[in-house]
C-alpha cells in the first residue's frame, strides 16, 4: 500500500530571516499520498520548512530562501513561478483556526470563486457540499450554511479551514500544528479525517505531540536548530532511531 513516489523534494534548502538562519541545508523527500510528520522543539524550523513549500514565506519582507524545492520534479523556488497556481495546488491549514469573517458557505466557496472553478451556482453548491463532507463537517453545518464561520466551535472552525483548503482540489495539504488549539475530542476528529484524506492528498503535518505523530503519520522527520536530524518511517523513528538526539527528544529527555 505504501507508494514511494516522491512528491516534494528539497535540496540544500536554507532560509534566513534577516541575519538569522532559520533552516540549514535541509534535504528532505516527502512521499505522495502519505502523511509526513515533522517534529522537533519550538523554533527548530518545522513551520518555516512547510511555509517554503507553498512559498508563504514570500509574505514576510525580510525572509530569504535559497536552495531547491521540487514538486513532481518541477523547481518552484524561482522568481518566474506563479505562486497563485502553486498555492492552488498546495493547501494549508494553520495553527489557529482562521475562518474568514464570512458565512460558512462563503468560507468554502472563497477558493473556487477566485480560481473560477465553478461556472454556476449549482456547481458551486456541489463543491461546497463535497468539501464540507470530505472535512466531516457537512452533517453539523448543512442547515446553517449562512451563519458566520466564526460562530462555530474551535474544532469545527478548524475543519472548516480544512474544507476551505480542499475546496480547490489541491495535491498537497500542509498542516501547521492544526490541533494545538483544540480539545482532545476535536483533535481525534481531525486525526480521523487525516487518515481519510491521505487517500487523496499528500499531507505534511507539523506537530508537537509525539503520540499524534505516531497515530497519523507514515514517515517522520526530526528537526533541531534548523537542521533536519533524521527522517525515516514513523515506526523506525519511534522504535529505533539512528540518532541519539532523536532518541532523547522522543523520550522526552530534552525539547
Amino acid at each position, binding site marked *: 500500500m505504501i507508494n514511494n513516489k516522491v512528491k516534494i523534494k528539497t535540496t540544500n534548502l536554507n532560509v534566513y530571516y534577516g541575519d538569522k538562519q532559520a533552516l540549514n541545508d535541509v534535504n528532505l523527500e516527502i512521499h505522495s499520498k502519505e502523511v509526513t510528520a515533522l517534529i522537533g522543539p519550538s523554533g527548530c524550523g518545522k513551520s518555516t520548512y512547510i511555509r517554503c513549500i*507553498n512559498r*508563504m514565506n514570500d*509574505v514576510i*519582507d525580510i525572509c530569504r530562501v535559497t536552495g531547491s524545492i521540487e514538486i513532481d520534479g518541477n523547481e518552484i523556488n524561482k522568481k518566474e513561478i506563479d*505562486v*497563485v*497556481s*502553486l*498555492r*492552488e495546488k498546495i*493547501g*494549508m491549514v*494553520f495553527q*489557529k483556526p*482562521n*475562518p*474568514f*469573517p*464570512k458565512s460558512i458557505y462563503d468560507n468554502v466557496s*472563497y*477558493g473556487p470563486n*477566485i*480560481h473560477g472553478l465553478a461556472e454556476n451556482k449549482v456547481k458551486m453548491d456541489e463543491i461546497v457540499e463535497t468539501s464540507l463532507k470530505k472535512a466531516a463537517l457537512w452533517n453539523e453545518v448543512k442547515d446553517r450554511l449562512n451563519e*458566520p464561520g*466564526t460562530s462555530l466551535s474551535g474544532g469545527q472552525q478548524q475543519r472548516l*479551514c480544512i474544507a*476551505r*483548503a480542499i*475546496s*480547490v482540489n489541491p495535491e498537497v495539504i500542509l498542516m501547521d500544528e492544526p490541533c494545538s488549539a483544540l480539545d482532545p475530542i476535536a483533535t481525534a476528529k481531525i486525526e480521523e479525517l487525516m487518515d481519510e484524506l491521505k487517500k487523496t492528498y499528500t499531507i505534511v503535518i507539523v506537530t508537537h505531540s509525539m503520540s499524534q505523530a505516531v497515530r497519523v503519520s507514515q514517515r517522520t522527520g526530526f528537526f533541531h536548530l534548523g537542521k533536519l536530524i533524521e527522517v525515516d518511517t514513523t515506526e523506525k523513528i519511534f522504535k529505533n532511531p539512528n540518532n541519539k538526539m532523536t532518541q532523547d527528544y522522543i523520550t522526552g529527555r530534552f525539547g
Partner: protein
Amino acid sequence: MNLAIIVLIVLFSISSFFFARTKVKKIAISNQTKLNALPDYYGFYLSLWCALPALLILIVWTIFEPSIIKAFIFQGISGENAQTYNNSELNLIYQQIKSFHFGYFTGTITEEIIRGAESYKSFLSIAQGSKIVLLATIIIFTTLYALKKILNNNKAREDVEKIFKGLLFVCSLVAILTTIGIIFALLFESIKFFSVINIFDFLFGTSWSPQRAFVRDASTITAEEYADLKNAFGTVPLFAGTAFIALIAMIVAVPIGLFSGIYMAEYANTKVRKYSKPIIEILAGIPTVVYGFFAALTVGPFFREIGEKFGLEVSSESALAAGLVMGVMIIPYISSLSDDVINAVPQSLRDGSYAIGATKSETIKRVVFPAALPGIVGSVLLAVSRAIGETMIVVMAAGLAANLTLNPLESTTTITTQIVMILVGDQEFDSPKTQSAFALGLTLFFATLVLNYIALRVVKKYREKYE
C-alpha cells in the same frame, strides 16, 4: 483669596498623608497587628478626606456667593427706597455699586450708591468670614472622621478605591451634564424663535435673508409682516449648500483617503510607511483658517481663471473651491483611521487567503476590506460630520449669499457660515435674527445625531466579526 485657601487645603492634605502613613506604621508595630493595606493607602485615605469635601464646598460656595450677595443688595435697595425699580434698573445699580466698591466708578456718585457700597463691603466680609469658618469646621470634622477610621485599621485600600471610583463618576457626570446643558440652552432659545416663526416655514422655506428681519415685539406681528418674515428664515438653501459642499468634500476625500490608507497598510514597506504617514498627518495639523485663505485666495481665483478660458462664469467664491479644499483637509482623517482599522485585521486572515492562492488585491477586496468595513464606515462618517460642521473654510471661501443651486461653480452658503454671520457684531438677544442662530445650531445638531445613529445601526448590522 480662594487661591490661598486652596493652597492651604492642599498643603494640609499633603501633610496629613505623611502623618497618617507614619501613624499607622507606628500603631502596627506597637500593637503587633497586621495592617489591612499598605501604609500609603492610609495616607491617601486621610488626605483625600481632608481635601475633597472642603474643595467641593469651596467650589459650590464660589459659584453661589455673588448671586446671594446680589440678592441681599437688591433687597437693601428696594427696602430703603420709596420708589420701585424694575429688574434691569436694579442690575444697573448693582453694577454701579460694585464698580464704586472696586474704585473704578466714573459716573455721578449718589447717596444710594455709597450706602450700597458700604453694605456690599460688609456682605463681602461676612461671606469671607463665614466661608473660612465653614471650611475649617468641615476640614476638622472630615479629618477626625477619617482619622478615627484609620486608627481602627479600616480597609483603606478598598475605601481609597471607592473614593477614586466616585471621583471618576463625578467627572463623567460633569461631561454629561454639560452636554445636556448645551442642548437645553439650544432648545430654549430655539423654542423662543419657533414661537415667532413656524417650524415648517423654517425647515421648508426656500428663501434665507435674516438681515431684513426687524421685529420689535414678537407678539404684535400682523399676518402681512409674518409673510415677509417667513421669507427671511427659510433654511432649505442652507441645508442644500451644506450638503452640497460636504458632498464635494467627500468625493475628494473618500477615494484618496481610503486608497492611501490601504496602500500604507498593505503595500508600503516599513520605510515608506515610516515617512509617509507622518507627512499625511501633517495635513491634519494645518489650522483650518490656513486652508480657508488657501481656498479663498489660491484655489477660488484659479478656478475662475480656468473657467474664463473656457468661457464659463465661475464665481470667485465657489462651492467647488470650498468643497475641494475641505476634502483635502479631511483626507488625513480617513486615511489615518482606515490605515489603523486595516492594520487591526489579524494577519492570520490574510495568511488564510494567500494560502489558498488569492493575490494581494483579491485578499484586500474580499477579506481585509470587509473585515475592516465597520471601522472604515466609522471613519467616513466622522469625516462627514466634520465636513458638515466645518466653519472656517466655508466662511472664507464659499460665499454668503444663500443661493439654491446645484452648480458647483456658483457661490453657496452653509449653516455654519450663516451662524457666524448672524452672531458676529452687536446683538440684541431677543430678536428672531439672533435666535435663528440657535435654531440653526439645534437643527445641525439634530441632523448630525440622526446621521450618527444611522451609521451605528448600519455598522452593527453589516459587521463581519473576526475572532
